[in-house]
């Protein structure tokens, strides 16, 4: 395959272009995704290339974006809807949670809703209120909806392709800070990265460190510090699909290490970390040497830009948690 260094923005843009090329049924809709190319430029040039019939701006109405996407998906199209910031998902919760995610269920399998909802999320970039929130935990109790969060350009492109191919609705959350933070050799061609599969980013023996999105680089940095300062070998696992979780990957790693730390920037209570911890309790209790630790955003609203850095997990906070689970 021909490789080219790409940012996550470029990789996502290319993934969307490939979908539009491959499949006439694919349409893109959202706010400012047309001529403006999306506020982060993920859809740059796509309207010009594929026309307004397939790539179009909607009125400013999140609930109608998702609601009409449900209709289009049932009709047989493959809509890829953009909600401009994940904080605005609250405005379309009913359509997403009670309608898109339940179409198969309530029709007894007569209809399905193969819809992808893309939305930028995540903090550390000094945005106004509700432009930095991490909402993935909210969707743990939305049966029927998958939630995918890539941490790098390669995965972003392949996971988005897999999300479009999936027969059910997928919420695809893109971390704003990772959009342009680094380039990675990424194939120009079409490929998929399977949904529901975690990835071991760094193998290790002493402790399992679970992360996703922008917390993967934070976890890796903490793991390297732990190697240097504590002399421990940390296994870093990128969850990639946060719902449903890759139980097998979680269980096999913790059975090996006996210790675990989960990192995410979303609030702590009832979040992905809580669910990972429950899986570990259910399957690996007798392998566990210490209680599982969580390093997360706090159970407050996402703070204003002036203090947001204090809210987010840092390598120092993760290192402290690694130290804690390594105590004899």
């Amino acid at each position, binding site marked *: 395959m021909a490789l080219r260094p790409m940012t996550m923005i470029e990789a996502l843009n290319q993934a969307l272009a490939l979908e539009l090329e491959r499949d006439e049924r694919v349409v893109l809709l959202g706010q400012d995704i*047309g001529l*403006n190319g999306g506020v982060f430029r993920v859809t740059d040039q796509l309207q010009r290339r594929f026309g307004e019939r397939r790539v179009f701006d909607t009125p*400013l109405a999140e609930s109608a974006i998702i609601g009409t996407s449900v209709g289009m998906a049932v009709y047989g199209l493959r809509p890829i809807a953009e909600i401009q910031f994940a904080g605005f998902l609250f405005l379309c919760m009913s359509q997403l949670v009670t309608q898109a995610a339940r179409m198969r269920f309530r029709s007894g399998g007569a209809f399905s809703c193969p819809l992808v909802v893309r939305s930028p999320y995540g903090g550390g970039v000094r945005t106004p209120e509700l432009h930095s929130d991490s909402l993935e935990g909210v969707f743990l109790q939305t049966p029927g909806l998958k939630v995918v969060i890539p941490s790098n350009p390669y995965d972003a492109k392949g996971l988005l392709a897999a999300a479009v191919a999936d027969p059910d609705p997928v919420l695809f959350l893109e971390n704003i800070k990772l959009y342009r933070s680094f380039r990675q050799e990424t194939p120009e061609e079409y490929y998929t990265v399977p949904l529901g599969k975690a990835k071991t980013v760094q193998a290790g023996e002493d402790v399992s460190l679970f992360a996703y999105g922008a917390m993967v680089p934070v976890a890796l940095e903490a793991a390297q510090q732990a190697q240097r300062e504590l002399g421990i070998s940390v296994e870093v696992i990128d969850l990639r699909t946060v719902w449903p979780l890759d139980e097998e990957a979680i269980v096999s790693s913790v059975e090996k290490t006996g210790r675990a730390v989960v990192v995410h920037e979303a609030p702590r209570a009832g979040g992905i970390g809580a669910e990972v911890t429950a899986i570990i309790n259910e399957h690996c209790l007798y392998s566990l040497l210490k209680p599982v630790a969580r390093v997360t955003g706090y159970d407050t609203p996402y703070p204003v830009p002036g203090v947001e850095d204090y809210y987010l997990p840092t390598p120092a906070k993760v290192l402290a948690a690694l130290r804690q689970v390594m105590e004899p």
Partner: protein
Amino acid sequence: MAIHQIDPGLVPFQILDPEGNLVGEMPALSPERLLYFYRMMRLARAFSDRIIALQRQGRATTFGSLTGQEAATVGLAAPLQPQDWLATSYREIASLIVKGVPLSTLVYSFRGYTPPNWPAETRCLPYQIVIGTQIPHAVGLAMAAKIVGDPVVAVGVCGDGATSEGDFNEALNFAGVFRAPVVIIVQNNGWAISVPRHRQSAAPTLAARGIGFGVPSALVDGNDILAVYETVRQAVERARAGDGPTLIELLTYRLGSHTTADDANRYRDPAEVEAWRARDPIARLQKFLRRRDLLSEEQDEEIGASVLAEIDAAVREAEAMPPMAPDSFFDYVSASLPPRLQEQRAELLRFVTPSQQPGERH
């Protein structure tokens, strides 16, 4: 009368034409009041320019330009009394200033902090970031005033994009059904980021939305401060008299980009912007005042200098205020902090170095 019981029509209500000529009935406004309007419009523009400059220097966070909408935002707040409520978006900062929110409080918020001294007594809700969500609040404030029997009016303001949201339409419906003493104002500035007005609604006017909800409405030249003032004054009076809600569409234009994070040149024809520059709301009132000998060149310069001095002082004051403490975002989660959050707060403080505490950090 600008307010129509049924069809607001297609011709915007106007008192001053773009050249500053009086083309309608002059409202009862003293020369001092007219000069106050003019000064507040100059202040609004200079404030917007200053915050954008501070943002470029890394001294402020994302900011949405106010330029071009000064007649609408000053004019809509001017008829309100102290007991009236105001719920706005981020585009109506000038309305908040007119209603009494101190400049320094606003500058502090644009530094990226929560002001410790939001003036609740001004009855302004903090400017709303999420689109259209403040309109049900305005209707609810008005319903409360009616339930209690207070002679209080609420004003809710949003942009043209917000009229596409469910909240806007649901709130307008409530306003009509409960005959709430509310004025719902749409600042139609032509653009919702990159999406032009004609892509928000197939209807020729947004004011006509009132017909379907049984709410009287008005279509107004939003760059004519006299027309804005007079229409909102009448609507507020109607509401206070128990005659129910009014929907007002103000036709104006966003001369700047959506925010400091946006570049309008990507999607907007410069010729359109130039055409609207010729309809500048500040120049319009200036011409009128000059022609009537209510504003000398000297006075005009003094006003320019005094608004800059006022803004300088506000920026100095806001920048002298200490940054928020690192753990301050635990303060207002709820009236009292649950034990679990107290633990989390203590956990955070273990990672805060003394130099990051307020007073020592800059």
